[in-house]
């Protein structure tokens, strides 16, 4: 019996040689963007329910014009047309959701142009923008047309049988509390039976969408939790010191653009800090600035300003919260940082 040793060579056809990272979750920009769109769907339905079908028109015009403007600018810049990644649609939808339902359509188109053109494409497209494009569009429109941007309709229950709810103008809960009058009750605020921008009123729908995104790990839970928590804490302390409607923490948390901003705008991957520690700093900063503007500023609402200001600070936050690479001694990493 002859013993013959054979050296078994591995089957090279089954070996894959690649550089790291070796594991990824097959995520892609279109996948993320269309998930965000899906997460915004409940809020869109709520807005049509409370404001009438014109809400859908405003949102569609914003989305279509954002995509069209991005395609046009890509063509002018001789770049690959990048509307397939869906980010322009998300920007358009978010911008539309921050406008009043009565906004004229030219305003939607101009706002989209500012959001995509000046907020994103001039910096080189998605990933290069320091500021959240939808917030840029909203703030520009707020500066440009202050009266059209603060004309609110009065909401009273289901408006599915109407084009737009009755044209009587009313005040938003935040405008009421800024004048130290009591805002609407908890359920009105929670369900969105109040005046305001198209997509910001229905807290329930926004929380559902936000939790969906957190469960899919598309956004960090730290940003909405610390953002909303900071607003609640500061207004809560103010309310305990002087219990008047102006400082009511429940009204402040449930009304205005806080839910929309905290779940969908502050969590923008491009313009928020890279790691958890940074995200907490970012969110607390957003909360503090929002509360300061709401309580002591001349505007009743300050979410978009707070987000833009903290967007500007994001590179700095990233710099000071950068993690220590594995294996690097603590002292050495600090010296190099």
């Amino acid at each position: 019996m002859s013993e013959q040793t054979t050296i078994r060579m591995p089957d090279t056809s089954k070996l894959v040689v690649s550089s790291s990272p070796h594991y990824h979750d097959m995520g892609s920009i279109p996948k993320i963007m269309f998930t965000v769109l899906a997460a915004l769907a409940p809020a869109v339905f709520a807005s049509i329910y409370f404001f009438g079908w014109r809400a859908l028109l405003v949102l569609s015009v914003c989305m279509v014009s954002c995509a069209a403007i991005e395609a046009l600018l890509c063509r002018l810049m001789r770049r690959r047309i990048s509307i397939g990644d869906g980010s322009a649609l998300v920007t358009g939808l978010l911008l539309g959701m921050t406008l009043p339902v009565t906004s004229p359509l030219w305003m939607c188109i101009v706002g989209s142009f500012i959001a995509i053109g000046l907020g994103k494409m001039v910096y080189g497209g998605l990933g290069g923008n320091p500021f959240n494009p939808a917030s840029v569009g909203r703030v520009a429109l707020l500066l440009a047309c202050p009266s059209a941007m603060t004309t609110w309709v009065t909401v009273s229950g289901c408006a599915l049988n109407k084009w737009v709810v009755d044209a009587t103008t009313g005040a938003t809960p935040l405008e009421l509390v800024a004048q130290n009058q009591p805002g609407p009750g908890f359920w009105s605020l929670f369900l969105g039976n109040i005046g305001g921008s198209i997509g910001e009123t229905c807290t329930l729908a926004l929380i559902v969408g936000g939790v969906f995104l957190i469960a899919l790990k598309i956004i960090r839970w730290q940003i909405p939790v610390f953002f909303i928590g900071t607003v609640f804490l500061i207004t809560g302390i103010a309310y305990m010191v002087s219990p008047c409607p102006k400082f009511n923490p429940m009204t402040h948390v449930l009304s205005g653009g806080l839910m929309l901003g905290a779940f969908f705008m502050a969590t923008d991957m491009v313009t928020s800090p890279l790691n958890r520690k940074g995200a907490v700093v970012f969110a607390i900063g957003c909360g503090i600035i929002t509360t300061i503007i709401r309580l002591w500023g001349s505007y009743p609402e300050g979410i978009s300003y707070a987000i833009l200001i903290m967007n500007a600070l994001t590179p700095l936050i990233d710099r000071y919260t950068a993690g220590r690479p594995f294996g690097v001694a603590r002292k050495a990493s600090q010296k190099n940082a």
Partner: protein
Amino acid sequence: MSVLKEFTKGIWKENPVLVLMLGMCPTLAVSTSAKNALGMGIATTFVLAGSNVVISWVRKFIPSNVRIPCYIVVIAVFVTIVEMLMGAYAPAELNKTLGIYIPLIVVNCIVLGRAEAFASKNGAFASMLDGLGMGLGFTLALMALGGVREFLSAGTLFEYVVVPGWPDFLLFKLPAGAFIVLATFLAIMNYRRIRKAEREGTSYTPPEMDCSRCHICK
């Protein structure tokens, strides 16, 4: 021919605002409407031409160590004249809008820059043409900016309604609008130059009078 070139270079090729990037402060602040821009442009042109001539006359007598204070004194004389003339003859409303920006022409980079870069090295006639050309270039650039801003914010030009029913769009009246319009202008200028250089097979270099070559703040 070369004398004429001193006049025309300021209008387009070495436009103080759009190419040399001088005098940004009045450019951004005063270009809210075409009328304000025109008023500011005329005042600056007068100061520029006058100070260039005087500085060119006395350039041989000024010790180089104290030349900047001397230029400032000469410029301040002309600015004072302009301020008094405007107070006496310009429309009160325009005078009020331009306000502090008229006295501030004293420290306008264009005026000081041309004194240092041109008038202190050239004859009086050439300096005057240079000043007039640069002033005209400044006025035109300011009017273009002011015109675009006024049109976009209210649909008017020189307060004449061009498009009736144009909705108020205050953004372009605000400082943010000034930056947006100026940046768009500069982007278009640079785009044209880069394209031109590409066609000629060269790369675009800024003209000789950019900040790195100017030795005022050395």
